[in-house]
């Protein structure tokens, strides 16, 4: 396979105005921040942002007006701000539209996208007002399980245009290793039409001989060398979140 190693500047051009995107990590952990900063610098607009429990990366995208629509289960900066400021304000002001999801349904949808199947069932959920929202959006259907007759929610496959996944190590072809928490990052990579890997370290392909990469090269579009690429969010086991910089961004205190 040829090398997919490109610069951050080249990589951001793979994301187009109006694209649906998903990113690695949660809250203040392993967000692909180097890429996100490059993206807002590029002036990207109208993104449809899809994720389970985003935090800091989403706040940056929102602050710089990059996002038009959201599909997420929760956005929080936890101790820093239970309800992130831009998230709250822009939805209340209708500058951004939100289709609220729920974790299990997001996982079902992104797994369906990853596996190449049209939908996936998920348990629970029935009785939630989210059902109406998603039925209207065409993203969920309530059916009777044809085996048991019981009602169950089907989630339509989630297939983002672009996934941006920050990893510990990658080779030039895109084989990638994530240490520690994984979240849905493998499913995100497998489900998305384009996959951009940003990596703390570029390793030779032989690093992966005999090993299972967390994400296989076959699924990857481009690789970017981005040391400290998650800062100020955390990157296990390399660095903790930079609380000072997060507070500074939020303009608290």
């Amino acid at each position, binding site marked *: 396979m040829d090398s997919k190693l490109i610069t951050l500047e080249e990589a951001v051009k793979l994301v187009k105005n109006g694209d649906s995107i998903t990113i690695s990590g*949660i*809250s*203040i*952990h*392993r967000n692909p921040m180097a890429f996100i900063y490059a993206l807002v610098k590029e002036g990207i607009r109208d993104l449809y942002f899809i994720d*389970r*429990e985003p935090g800091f990366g989403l706040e940056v995208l929102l602050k710089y007006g990059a996002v038009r629509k959201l599909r*997420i*289960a*929760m*956005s*929080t900066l*936890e*101790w*820093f701000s*239970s*309800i*992130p400021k831009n*998230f*709250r304000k822009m*939805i*209340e002001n209708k500058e951004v539209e*939100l289709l*609220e*999801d*729920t*974790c*299990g*349904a997001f*996982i079902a949808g992104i*797994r369906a996208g990853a596996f190449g199947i049209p939908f996936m069932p*998920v*348990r*629970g*959920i*029935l*009785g*939630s*007002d*989210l059902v109406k*929202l998603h039925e209207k959006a065409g993203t969920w259907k309530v059916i009777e399980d044809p085996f048991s007759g019981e009602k169950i929610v089907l989630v339509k496959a989630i297939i983002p245009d672009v996934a941006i996944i920050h990893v510990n190590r990658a080779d030039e072809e895109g084989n990638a290793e994530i240490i*520690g*928490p*994984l*979240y*849905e990052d493998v*499913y995100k990579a497998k489900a998305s039409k384009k996959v951009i890997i940003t990596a703390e370290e570029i390793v030779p392909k032989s690093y992966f001989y005999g090993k299972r990469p967390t994400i296989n090269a076959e699924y990857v579009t481009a690789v970017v060398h981005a040391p400290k690429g998650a800062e100020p969010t*955390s990157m*296990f*086991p390399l660095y*903790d*979140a930079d*609380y000072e910089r997060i507070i500074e961004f939020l303009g608290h205190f």
Partner: protein
Amino acid sequence: MKAYTIDYVIKAISTLLEDGELVYIGLNSVPALIGTFMARDLYKKKIRIIGVAEAENPVRVTLSPSTGNPFFLESSPVMITADSFDLAQKGKLDVMFLGPAQIDEETNINLSVIGDYENPKVRLPGGAATAFIFPLVKKAILWNLKHSKRSLVKRVDFVTGTAKFSNNKVFVVTNLGVLRYDRKDKKWYLDYVYPFTSYEQVKENTEFEVEKGYMIKIEINEKDLEFINSVDPYELRSALEIL
């Protein structure tokens, strides 16, 4: 040592956990995290702790601004959230904590919006796992630090999730005490109060009916405080102090 009100919430959470339980801790869940580790490490309950940090029963934790801190993994294997939630789908997840802004008499809870979904007065963080997991988990512990007629309401503005069609146990831990939902008579009972709260106070501050339950008083001793401070040496929990 001084006890914060939230320390009573923490102790109450610890009290509700039982031997053999598998407990999941989500994001933004400071009292759940401290209370659960208190149950395991101070009160020696045989529970296993998993969560959004993807740490499988870490030997020790120190509270940081995120309850999803991956550095919990320094003393534990990784267990990813998708795997944990699959256990919930199999009915094998025992305890989940949720922090709704509104809870109503039918066990509907709201973490989405105050007001109308399309025209929210307050856009809340969102339910995260709520809709999915609330009916699946064997014991749901809801926590809310602002017990009032605006949070414990007749009817929530938006049903983010509900346990109405489930048969699980539902508790609400607040800054005033602990309510238990009884599925037989579809009523709420006050099982625990704090030294500084009373049934009358709870009744006055709850929009739906609350009956007297076990009415056990949660007390905090020096050992509790020492433990809480050992997990939260920077007293980050004080930011949640609202009384």
